[in-house]
């Protein structure tokens, strides 16, 4: 069994030199200071800005530097964008280049599919940066995505084998975030799943965010059919800024509920938690009736947070994984 807690993370300084060099740096542009700052600080041979369609940036808002403009993509673009980027920059996966992705500005499905594709193409190690906010712009009322939900579906690269058609022994795990409408949408979409399990971010990024999270999640308690209490077996806690602890938490859940024949995972909380879902899935769930589902919205807020309080670098390693397309 993989011990995710052995995987490496370090805190990068807010001021001063990072003493970290990388060959390829990829970031998704948005209006948050956190994103711009990491792009400026990092020492990389090549840096790329992804312009994602969800943010609906106008051309005059684009940053400088080398751009990968996927703003015109539509439909289910997360895989198309990843494929196109690697097609335009094959050097990234050819040779021994170090790769670093700043996930702070990424809309989660793009981040997830891109990492899946890198791993499927044989990449064994990826550094990931995540910058924690001081607070979200509107506290527990912060909206991250637009109100126009398109659909809840599997994320490309995480679609899994067919679930038992009855669904009665399926389980749904939600990494519970701020947006109760998205939690509702996911729980409603997979209402057939007999078990609905929630992972709350604790410790949270900031002390008050835990209460904000609970406040918002409580609005979805009827759809998830679960009031929040700390009683397991249906509510779990995993640090909001630690993908490795999240992956370990998922391991624990799978062991405790091993009678479930199929799983849906939905990371709706922080991006570092979502990274934990990615890590766990790629290492342990490929080729099984497990899929990651996500509520895809038409648009995403350009700026949802204020200031930076911490910057993390996580090293994802897949040394023994032999996946292929």
């Amino acid at each position, binding site marked *: 069994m993989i011990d995710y807690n052995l995987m490496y993370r370090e805190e990068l300084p807010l001021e001063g030199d990072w003493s970290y060099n990388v060959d390829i740096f990829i970031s998704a542009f948005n209006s948050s200071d956190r994103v711009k700052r990491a792009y400026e600080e990092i020492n990389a041979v090549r840096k790329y800005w992804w312009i994602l369609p969800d943010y609906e940036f106008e051309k005059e808002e684009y940053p400088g530097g080398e751009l990968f403009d996927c703003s015109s993509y539509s439909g289910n673009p997360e*895989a198309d964008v990843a494929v196109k980027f690697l097609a335009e920059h094959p050097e990234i996966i050819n040779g021994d280049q170090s790769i670093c992705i700043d996930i702070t500005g990424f809309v989660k499905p793009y981040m997830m599919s891109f990492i899946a594709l890198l791993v499927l193409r044989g990449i064994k190690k990826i550094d990931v940066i995540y910058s924690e906010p001081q607070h979200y712009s509107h506290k527990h009322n912060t909206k991250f995505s637009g109100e126009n*939900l398109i659909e809840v579906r599997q994320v490309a*690269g995480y*679609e899994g084998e067919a679930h038992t058609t009855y*669904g*009665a022994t399926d389980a749904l795990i939600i990494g519970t975030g701020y947006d109760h409408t998205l939690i509702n949408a996911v729980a409603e979409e997979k209402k*057939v799943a007999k078990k609905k399990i929630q992972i709350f971010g604790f410790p949270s990024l900031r002390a008050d965010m835990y209460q904000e999270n609970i406040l918002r999640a409580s609005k979805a308690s009827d759809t998830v*059919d679960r009031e929040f209490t700390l009683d397991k077996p249906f509510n779990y806690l995993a640090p909001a800024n630690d993908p490795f602890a999240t992956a370990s938490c998922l391991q624990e859940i799978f062991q405790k509920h091993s009678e479930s024949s199929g799983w849906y995972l939905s990371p709706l909380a922080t991006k570092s938690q979502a990274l934990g879902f990615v890590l766990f899935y790629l290492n342990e769930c490929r080729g099984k009736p497990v899929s990651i589902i996500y509520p895809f919205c038409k648009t995403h807020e350009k700026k949802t947070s204020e200031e930076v309080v911490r910057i993390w670098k996580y090293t994802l390693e897949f040394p023994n994984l032999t996946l292929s*397309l």
Partner: protein
Amino acid sequence: MHANPFEVVKSVDFSDEEINEYWVDLAESRDQFTEIIKPLSPTPMILLGGKGSGKTHVVRHYSYNLQRIRNKADIYKGVLSEGFLGVYFCLGGLNEGRFKGKGLERYQWTEIFVYHLDLSLAQQTLETFDRFLNDASLKDKVNEVSLCQSIASLFSPPITTPNSINEFITYLESKRREIDNAVNNCAFTNKLNVEILTNRGALVLKIPEMLVKVIPEGKHLKLLYLFDEIENVNIDVQIYLQTLIRECRKTASSIKLSGRLYGLKTRETYCDGEKNVEGSEYETLTLDEKLRDYNGYDDFIVRLCLRRLHEQNPHIKDKDTLYKCFTTTDVPTGSYDFSAQEERLGNHEAWFLLGKDLQKERRHLSKLKRKLESVDVSPDTVSKIMHNLSFHEYPFVEKTSTFILYKQWSELGKSSGALGDFLLVASNKIAASAKMYLEKDYKESLHFKKLGHFRNDLIAQLRREHDRKPQYLGMNAFIAMSCGLPRNLLQILKHTYAAALFRGEKVFSPSDPISVDAQRAGVRQAAQWFFEDALIGHDATHHLRDAILRLAETFAEVRFSDKPAECSVISFSTDESRLSPACRETIKVARERSLLIKVVGGRKDKNSRNIHVHYQLNPMLSPHWELPLHRRGTLPLDAGLVNSIFDPEQSGKFNSQKMIRLKDMYAPFKNIKGAGHQQLELGL
């Protein structure tokens, strides 16, 4: 810690045993659901219903897993007696969202998904059949090799025939897995190589005949396909399902499709583009409509609650005991028994709202006085009118008097110079009617006639004027709020139970009924849940929400006006032909989400005699806006106002359109000189 007997409100969260345990038929003494679902009918059925109507519970009841529970003693005889073997199939579990985009055309995906569906269904059917053979100890009576050969003949090119049903199941599963891998990888390769080995529908339509032939005495058995959650598949797949409906009638299978009100997307088929016709190729049952129209709905839903309470509260055995578990009024009467006359005169409400000495300010009188003064009726006349209408000992009668005066005022077409005299004469007659209402010939009085329609509205107004919340208490109210969707009632009871426990109350104890506070908290939460839940998954949530808010606001302003145009307004009628396309679309979505209910038959317009469409707001929303629970009067609305309510592009006109409609309901009314320029006092 008490377990909330109403915690689980969705049947998907029930195990098969619980589905069986909590099964309640429509009629106590006969299998009425079977009469309406008709599992043996060769005519397929499309069962639609709002969220929480009970579709999945009903459909699962006919699945084999439930047959084996209710026929535990002898499954073989049970299945033969019921005449079918139920195969339940949840279309949502197929995760259809994977089968699109990725560089392929739509028609390519449809072919692959349908093949995947056929394999899945065949696997499910064989698994069900194999379970039945084991349960009925028939395994050794069936030649599985021969059966597998028959099924294998449906594949082309030929496959290596599995030697047993279990092997065939494994084979089908492996084929499904191959498709899954290919579909998943296609996201990154944009290539898909899937070999389709059977004709579309062959497995679904031909396997049943092969299976029933091998069951001893089973040749008349039907294989009943129960497809649930049809809303989770796209229109192309639904064309396929419609084709199956068309083709299954001559086979050993029977089909029931089940889904949300908005679940049915097409009636087209692959049979030369023919469309299935309701009443010919299939029949439709809309479950919540059926329940709303069912005379025995109240009894049915009470039995549902009693079944839930059975384990924890076995002493609650009947309707009366259940009803006694809830306080039904917030009016404290102590040990005083109001006579029928005192009730008729509204004394219990009056004492509650104004104190037993009835000394509190009569706000309905203060308001009327202000309005009379605003239209230049002389102070002397105002004083005489107020004297005529005042009835200190009977505030409710007094309130009714003001209402009658407003009504008469609104029908006046004279100038303000004559208004005072007219109203004074009217107030004299009203005073006489009020006195008559106290006597034994009260039925002859104007008060009696008006209260026959507007009693509930006037009580609601009186409560609001004295800062009291409306009631919405007790099982009768809860059942009315459920409106054909049993889950609504379960939600109310779930939250009420939790609220009562939180307050340290006994729950479901007839000697210690659940408090007003706890019920109000439960109703409030359930109403909020209903509204938010209805909006989930709709991509223009805010438009729909805003439309419902505008409609409800309009109803509330009618109810709390000086002279409501109709009594107990919770519904409206309009000329549909004059509505904008966007307006009609929003109304359609609101209906599909059970926020609006279409009243069958429409309503005849008084002027044109044309039939106008008639819609009611779901009474689960009533508590938000203090609206009635039961529909009585219907508010006719012109197309301009309806468009401004439901069409987002025209919502900017809503306030002005609403003011035009409401002008006739707020003194000093439209016919009064200068009224058009006055700011209406909306009395809220």
